[in-house]
């Protein structure tokens, strides 16, 4: 590299002589920063979504590369939000990619002092057994006056406000068929 080239590359020189006298653009770029691009530019696809936090329902564009979410931005098309996101919505990439996210089943046996591992199918099978058992123990055919109750008070469910309509629908439908009336969510709170 000749002295002339070196001088020409010097940011101060470029700032003084070039088109960026305030040193906020091209004058301060290095080959490395020149090569940088936004995470969104090399996405394989952009998937339309909705922010998962409050109930305003801001539109989100989810950028995906190699099957992984790489960035989430506001969706300018949305007449609700016009591309804006609040601090929480803007942080939702980290919600998806959080290093503390738990991705395996954890199991604590009665009176246990530590978490243990458990296979997902085994867990589902154990839960199904417990539902059947609790349903039986809490079953009420009729009240003391003989009126039909056809229900169980053996178990209950809490949650739904953060879930999809389709999910709430399956929960309510399944619980009604099981006779389990104790279904509640954040809307009561």
């Amino acid at each position, binding site marked *: 590299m000749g002295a002339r080239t070196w001088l020409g590359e010097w940011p101060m020189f470029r700032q003084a002589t070039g088109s960026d006298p305030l040193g906020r653009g091209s004058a301060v770029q290095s080959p490395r920063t020149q090569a940088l691009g936004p995470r969104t530019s090399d996405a394989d696809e952009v998937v339309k979504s*909705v922010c998962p936090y409050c109930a305003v329902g801001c539109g989100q564009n989810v950028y995906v590369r190699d099957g992984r979410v790489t960035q989430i931005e506001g969706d*300018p098309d949305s007449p609700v939000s*016009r591309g804006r996101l609040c601090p929480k919505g803007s*942080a939702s990439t980290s919600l998806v990619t959080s290093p503390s996210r738990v991705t395996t089943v954890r199991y604590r046996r009665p009176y246990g002092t530590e978490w243990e591992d458990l296979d997902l199918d085994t867990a*589902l099978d154990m839960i199904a057994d417990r539902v059947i058992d609790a349903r039986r123990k809490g079953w009420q055919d009729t009240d003391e006056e003989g009126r039909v109750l056809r229900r169980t008070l053996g178990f209950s469910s809490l949650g739904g406000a953060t879930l999809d309509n389709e999910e709430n629908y399956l929960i309510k439908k399944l619980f009604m068929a099981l006779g389990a009336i104790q279904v509640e969510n954040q809307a009561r709170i």
Partner: protein
Amino acid sequence: MAEAHPVGFQWVMEAKARGAKIIHVDPRFTRTSAVADLHVPFRAGADIAFLGGLINYVLTEGEDFREYVTTFTNAADLVGEDFVDTEDMAGIFSGYNADTGRYDPISWQLEGVEYEAPAAGMRDHWEADLREQADGSGQSDEGRQREHHAAMASDTGGGAGDAAHATSTPQRDETLQHPRCVYQVLKRHYSRYTPEAVSRVCGMGVEEFLQVARAITENSGRERTTAWVYSVGWTHHSVGAQYIRGAAILQTLLGNMGRPGGGILALRGHASIQGSTDIPTLYDLLPGYIPMPNAHLHDDLRSFLDADAAKTGFWGNMDTYMVSLLKAWWGDAATPENDFAFDYLPRLTGDHGTYGIVRDQIDRKTYGYFVVGENPAVGHANGKMQRLGLANLEWLVVRDMQMIETATFWKDGPEIETEELRTEDIGTEVFFLPCANHTEKAGTFTNTQRLLQWRREAAHPPGDARSELHFYFHLGKKIREKLAGSTDERDRPLLDLTWDYPTFGVHEEPDPESVLGEINGYDADGNPLSSYTQLKADGSTTAGCWIYTGVYKDGVNQADRRKPGSEQDWVAAEWGWAWPANRRTLYNRASADAEGRPWSERKALVWWDAENDTWTGHDIPDFEATKPPSYVPAEGATRQDALAGTDAFIMQTDGKAWLYAPAGLADGPMPTHYEPVESPVANLLHEQQDNPALERIDRAWNRINPSQSEVYPYAFLTYRLTEHHTAGGMSRFLGYLSELQPEFFCEVSPALAAERNLEHLGWATLISARTAIEARVLVTERMKPLRIGDQTVHQIGLPYHWGSNGLSTGDPANDLLGVVMDPNVHIQESKVATCDIQPGRRPRGPALLDFVESYRRKAGVEPGGNT
């Protein structure tokens, strides 16, 4: 709103840029206040005094929108002679039973109307009352008994029964002069809510109040409309439902309902909390606000419909909604011969709301618990009560993305620290199942304006993470397999259930669009329905949630419509889909006058097009398209045919907006100011201190601070920060958000800081009859001491997001709260309570229990404990 719903707030700022005046009424000065034209500091829990003051101002100044009021409301109806107002009964309405703490609403009826339907909450109690009556000696007047039974037999649940059973037309005085007409009754009821009284109760200046009163009346009428925006600051009270009623009365008097720029807008705090109310994971409702059947009132489908379906208005079609739901769930097994499997539904016998469930968990009356996407150990009032419930279960399933406090209570909960519980003694078996997030599954959220928006799937969930759709579908499948072949009658609903969704992928994920299709509903030939008006009661149609019928019109996912807002008009009707029928403003018939002409060109929304004999406009009319304004129902007409061309409020039996609610509420036909249960002051408006019909749970783990206690002298309120979300499960575990708001704090005024020697950025301990928690101190002018009567009231602000897990940790504010509830909806009073505050950190370990007990003793409160 600027802090908790910032992106929605851009529209408030747009309105301001166009000349709208923004008024913020809040105990705290927030970022909303900073950009408002006027911030009115205010005492938490005094809202009905404030709203009542505005109603009084409108009525005494004659500022109501008279033509709107006479056209669309029940102002002219006469109230029956038996009704006695709070004015004449020391703050209690007629019909109150001091022994049961409940109202009998029969004396609240309108003259000439036999009976109307009470509220869900009331029915929970009344069935017990009814049985007492039946068992007791009160059988002499059989006619009256029947009338009572009918009045009590109905249910709103927020829906159907709200206006059920106006079997005859009430007497009216169109001049509004009759002393018993609703208009005059209302005027008398609020006459003591003068500007001076409001000032004394709420702690705002008389001139400040009048500024608000003038602003809203000047900004309402033909040419202008005013909107009210609220959140849980209105619902989390022992009189919460009546807060909303107060706003409804005011907005109806001013002609601000069903019109652009008007309304009472609830800002809800979870992505689909509206959806989870519409398709309710709630005990008292079936999809589309159909009430759950009650064991003591509903033997069969006919008695259910008789009791709960209105005869007139669109709830008159509840038979079609209900039968279509039963057909969606039980398919071919639901036949006319078996009442469409109505008997497959379990029955309620009372309040099965979440606090009752947790009480039963502590008492070991219920054994298992699914917690999905919620964190009650931090996010619900009285955290100890929640955790004691968890500790007394046989098994607990938690489905979340992060290891939230609800899943780890047995290991590191506050009760482990105080040695009230020992890990080795807790028998609860805990399954933590990781879940998919919003980018890893497709489906709809319903936002706070009833808009369904579809999310597409962007990536597969990692590891064992699955959607709830996957979990519940496969759990249901597994249980059905295990019970296959059972001859037990109780298993029939499960085995006959339509539970056969197509799946895709290696994990056999159910197709969410097939579920959306079922929610929408189909005709007898399997074609998707396009409107709930197509539903039939003969079993030929299905619909999983009738108000959502149309979302899958033409087999097209209407919630996935994404025509850019920039290419549409201001209604943006082609973005997503709003229930019902893609109408964006409910009751918008009221945006036009009796003849169907817009009240003004400026405020035109929908109108009658006489040339084409149809309603038309910018929005989809919330009215039968071809019913002319001149339509008068024939004698004996039923369903919507019974509503006139001017009856804009089509879900009501009389088609009117109710200024006075003769039925539907458990605590009075008109909102009345009662103090919060834990209040630093006496009720300055009425002798009755607090809501006489509120609900309590009297247990050692739920001790309540005495009202006006010197031991717990300060009011506190809980709220959200921009940077965190509810109980923190989706924010405290994230780096950016935890950096932005790293620590739990309490906001106190400089005056309170001086009174209690609190140091800015130092520590403070807050104490209630439940527990003591510690927080960093933020001394700020944003909190203003208020003058209430001759007392100074200090208020303390507490963001409630923290718990022991995650990147940013702190004591849960909700642990400070006890549980008392509104009798209509069983929602807790968590937006105001009392406490003491002292400098320094709280005691650790068992010493904390002694510390809290010493306060209870001083205050004369019974000892606390775990039973």
